[in-house]
Structure formats: structure tokens, C-alpha cells
């Protein structure tokens, strides 16, 4: 039984007098307990909106969220806001992109960690602060006693992200959603943070939903990867499968676009033509068709269905990249 079961999740941005925008268009995926699942796609494909919708953090006005988000058999979308609040932070933690702006600038770090413990575990301020110290220690912040009294701007970027991880994992949630946790960090720190995340998640058995545009992150961390395009899942596969044999031309293009060390210097880096705004509605065919190298007549006309492949994988393409025949 999956821990998180997202079924047919759609988010429509609707403002008076404007055309409704389908940011997330019937996304389904599951996360098993302890599993790490990646949501990958370029900017504007609906990754972050999906995570905010799961957490019930989208503004109520102007958004329509439909579908089901089953967490441990409970549909989070049907919970009253005040009840959902009890789940957030306790059962589901979340880490955001920018560690500086995600911390309150006028509250010392210790209190920010303690806040979530007081809220969900009914700790006293004193006990919570003591535990906060241990949490900071556990995420590798040096000299945690001193850091408790410091403010976010006094910490380095890496330490801030470590602190956010400590806060998110304080109540030992069963699921952690990380929305591009390494985007705002430099490369050396990125690796440290990813290693730390992996260790903590493995140790505590927490399931992880990793939202990223960085295929390197996916390669090192995720068990299963969902590739999103224009609000729909276009390909789902096990990590090794995806990297070894991408079937969807979009996934293929993404992998080709990653700079590699084993390619000759003079060679131009591969790119996917156009931008994410050059798409057609899914109801008229494949949204990726205008940018696709393998586009054929069948791509235009009607919605391309998501067909299961093997071992839980899935593919939404009429003319997929052919599988290499083993020689």
C-alpha cells in the first residue's frame, strides 16, 4: 500500500476575466514508504504547483484543485484547513528552494526549530530548545549551542538549508517534500546537502518526493522518476531505466542537454527547441509536439494516453525513442 497516492491531480488557475490556466493536468503518481520519488521537468511544467497542492498550500481564491491526494488512506484535499494543519509538519515535511527567505529573519534559529516541536509534540519551550540543539547537531551544523541564538542572516547558505532540513524533519514525518532544495546553493554545498538528505531519509525511513530540474540530483537520489511536461506526466521509470533508455523524446532531449565530460570539446551542446510556452493543449494532441524531433501525424488530433510500460513505468508518446536491441 503506497504512503502517498496522488490520483488525477489537477490545478486550474482561474482569475476573473482571464483564460483559465491548467498548471497541473491530471497528474498521478505513488510514493511507497521509504521510497524516493523524483518529479522532474523544466521551469513552468507544474512541479512546484503539484507539491503546493499536495500540501494544501495554494491560495484558496483563484485556484481549483481537483483529484485525490491520498496520504495513508486519507484524502488530504477533503480535510478541513484546520485539520490539514495538524498533518503538515507532523506527517509531511517540506523544504523550499531559497533557504534564506524561508527562515523568519527576526527570530533566532533555535526558536524556529523549537516552534514546530512545540506545535506538534506539545513540548515546553525549554525541552523543545534542547531537542532543537540535537537536531541542528544531527544535520551537521557545527557548534549548535551557539547557533541556537543566532539569526538566519548570520548563517551561511549551506547552514541555512541544513537548518531548514532540521526543521522539516523535527517531528520525524513519514513524507518529506523537497522543492528544489539545492537550487540556491553552490555546487560543493549541493553535494553535501544531497548526501545529508539521503542519509537522513535512509536512516529514518522517511519517504522523499524530490522536485528538481537537475537531472544530476535525480541520478544520485531517486528510486523512481516522474518526468513532467506542461502539467502532465509524460514518462515514469526506474532511475536506471530512465537514464539508460529514455523513451519519451522530451526525457531523451533533457538527458542529451546535460553537459558531459566524455564528449569532444568542439561539439555543440544539444538543446530542445523553443520554450515551455510553445505548446498545444493536451486535448488537441501532444503538448510537446511543437518542440519534438520525432513528431509524426499521429501526435496531433487527440490526447495521447499514458500507457503503462513495464515494472510500474509509464509512457505518454505515440512515437517513442526506440529501445536499443541488445546485441
Amino acid at each position, binding site marked *: 500500500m503506497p504512503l502517498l497516492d496522488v490520483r488525477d491531480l489537477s490545478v486550474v488557475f482561474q482569475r476573473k476575466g482571464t483564460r483559465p490556466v491548467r498548471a497541473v493536468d491530471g497528474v498521478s503518481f505513488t510514493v511507497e514508504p521509504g521510497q524516493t520519488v523524483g518529479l522532474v521537468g523544466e521551469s513552468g511544467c507544474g512541479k512546484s504547483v503539484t507539491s503546493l497542492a499536495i500540501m494544501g498550500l495554494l491560495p484558496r481564491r483563484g485556484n481549483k484543485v481537483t483529484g485525490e491526494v491520498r496520504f495513508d488512506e486519507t484524502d488530504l484535499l477533503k480535510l478541513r484547513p484546520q485539520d490539514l494543519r495538524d498533518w503538515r509538519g507532523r506527517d509531511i515535511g517540506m523544504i523550499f528552494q531559497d533557504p534564506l527567505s*524561508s527562515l523568519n529573519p527576526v527570530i*533566532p534559529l533555535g526558536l524556529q526549530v523549537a516552534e514546530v516541536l512545540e*506545535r506538534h509534540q506539545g513540548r515546553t519551550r525549554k525541552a523543545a530548545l534542547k531537542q532543537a540543539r540535537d537536531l541542528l547537531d544531527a544535520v551537521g551544523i557545527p557548534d549548535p549551542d551557539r547557533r541556537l541564538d543566532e539569526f538566519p542572516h548570520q548563517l551561511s547558505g549551506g547552514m541555512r538549508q541544513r537548518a531548514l532540513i532540521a*526543521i522539516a524533519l523535527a517531528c520525524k514525518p513519514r513524507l518529506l517534500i523537497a522543492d528544489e532544495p539545492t537550487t540556491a546553493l553552490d555546487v560543493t554545498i549541493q553535494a553535501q546537502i544531497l548526501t545529508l538528505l539521503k542519509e537522513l531519509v535512509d536512516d529514518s525511513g522517511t519517504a522523499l518526493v524530490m522536485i528538481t530540474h537537475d537531472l544530476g540530483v535525480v541520478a544520485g537520489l531517486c528510486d523512481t522518476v516522474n518526468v513532467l511536461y506542461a502539467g502532465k506526466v509524460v514518462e515514469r521509470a526506474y532511475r536506471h531505466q530512465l537514464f539508460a533508455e529514455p523513451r519519451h523524446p522530451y526525457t531523451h532531449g533533457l538527458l542529451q542537454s546535460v553537459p558531459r565530460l566524455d564528449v569532444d570539446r568542439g561539439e555543440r551542446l544539444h538543446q530542445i527547441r523553443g520554450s515551455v510556452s510553445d505548446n498545444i493543449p493536451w486535448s488537441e494532441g501532444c503538448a510537446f509536439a511543437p518542440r519534438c524531433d520525432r513528431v509524426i501525424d499521429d501526435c496531433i488530433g487527440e490526447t495521447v494516453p499514458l500507457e503503462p510500460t513495464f515494472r510500474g513505468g509509464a509512457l505518454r508518446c505515440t512515437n517513442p525513442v526506440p529501445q536499443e536491441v541488445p546485441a
Partner: protein
Amino acid sequence: MTRALSDVKRRRIDELIAHTSDAGGVSLLRDAGRRLVRNPTAIVGAAIIVLFLIIAIFAPLVAPHDPVQRFPELTQNLTVDTIPGAQAGHPLGSDPLGRDFASRMIYGARQTLFVGVLATLIGLLAGVLLGAVAGAVGGWVDAVVMRLTDVMLALPSLLLAITLVALARESSQWTVIVAVAIVNVPIFARLLRGSMLAQRESDHVLAARALGVKQRHIVSRHMLPNSLTAVIVQATLTFAVAILDAAALSFLGLGDPDINRAEWGLMLGVDGVRYFEVRPELAYYPALAIILVALGFTLLGESIREALDPKNRR
């Protein structure tokens, strides 16, 4: 091949690291206080305010005479065209009724600080309350509060104050204070609501919501403390305006009916203006006093804002 680091050097490195990183975390308030004391601007501002506070509190000891008593040596030289100037026993001369001007100035510090501080505080509290509710709740509550402030801001502040005082059955010092306070409410409310809205969209509020923090804690711990700095600065400016507004009301005959009461605004607005050609000092001294006090509050307020801003911490 390089030689391995010796234990002595390794220990030296540890020492150096320990030495450079023992800056230590101190509480926000203590740190703010420390920086405040080191800031010359703050010292000047605080010195001015303390000076006037001492004068106000110890007015009976500082003043040479009773502020309401009329002195024969002053009244006998008093005509429509002459008001006695400085003389022995009366360092600043007489006011238009033959009372000791210096004593009235000193007692005036009491009245003026009282009216200014109280009017500002009441306006601040009410404004912060309204602004916080509007900014935190949003929706129709926000709309109602903001349209109300629009209406209040559309009227010239003095006109509004006059209307409010006129509505009161009988005028006293308190009607003036309350009227001036109410005039300032929309300014504070609007200011706070604006920064609350900005805070509501901020990442750290989203992060707090993602942790399941209760709405009232999000408002009180995450949104309000980050929104207050603008209000603190505004309060110091409002203080000076409040004194002048109160003076204007007195000038229009809507203030305190007690003619014996010494207040700088009243002295400047009534006697100072009426007898400006006879003895301009009657206007100069109260005006100078008001400017000095306002300057003191502004300097201190600005330094407090700087000191409280955690981004300025080192």
C-alpha cells in the same frame, strides 16, 4: 611527497578556529541595545528627550515661578503694544497676561509631552490593531477597513480633527488627545497592512504554513514582528505632527477651555501668532521647543529602527 601535519600545528589550527568563531550569539534585544548605545545619533536623540522629560517631571522645582500667577511688575507695563521682555526675576519676560513666560515654557513641557505621547500611542495601538486584522484576515474585512481609512485620509487631517472635537459634547484636554489620535489611526493602519500583505506572500510565512503552524501564531510570530519597523519610524514622526495638530485645535478655540493651562502648541498658536509683531519671542520659544523635542524623537526612533533590524547585526 609532503609531510603530514604535525600534532602541534594541528592543535594550533583548532585554537585559531575556536578563537575566530567565539563571537557568540546574543539576544536580539541586548544586541540592539548595545548598538543603540554606540550610535551617536541615538545618544543625541535620547539626551534631548531625557532633558525634556526631566524638565517636565521636575517642573515645579525647575521653574522660577508659578505659571498661572500674574505678577504686578509685569502687568503694570502691559499694554496692547508692549509686552515686557526679560528682566530681573523673569528671564524670558512676560506673556500677554503678565505671567512669567519662562515658567510657562517649563510647565508647558509637561502638557506638551503628555498630549503628544498619548495621542501618538493611542493612534498607534488602534492603527496597529486595525492594520494587523486587515492584513492578516484579508477578504471583506480588509476591504471594509481599507475603505474606512480611505475616507478618513481623504479629509484633511485638521478638518477631521475639528469635526471630531465638535462632535464631543464638551471639550477638554482629552477630546483633543482622542481627536488627534483618531486622525493618525488610518496612517498606521494602512502602513502596517501594507507590510503585513508583503509578509503574507513571503517564503518564510509559506514555510511556517507548511509546518502546520497555527494561523494566530503565524500572524503574531512571523508576520507582525517583521512588519513593525515601518510603524516605529512613523510613530516618531507622528509625535511631532500630533503636537502641532493639538496646537492647531487650541488655536481654533476647540482645545482645552482652561486658559491657565500652559502648552507649547497653545502658546505658539494663540499668543505667538496674535502678538507676533509685538514680541516675536512668544512664538519663537515654543516653536523651538517643539522642534527640539520632535527632533529628539525622530533621531531616537530612526536609531531604534536601525538597531532592531537584524540585517544590521554584525
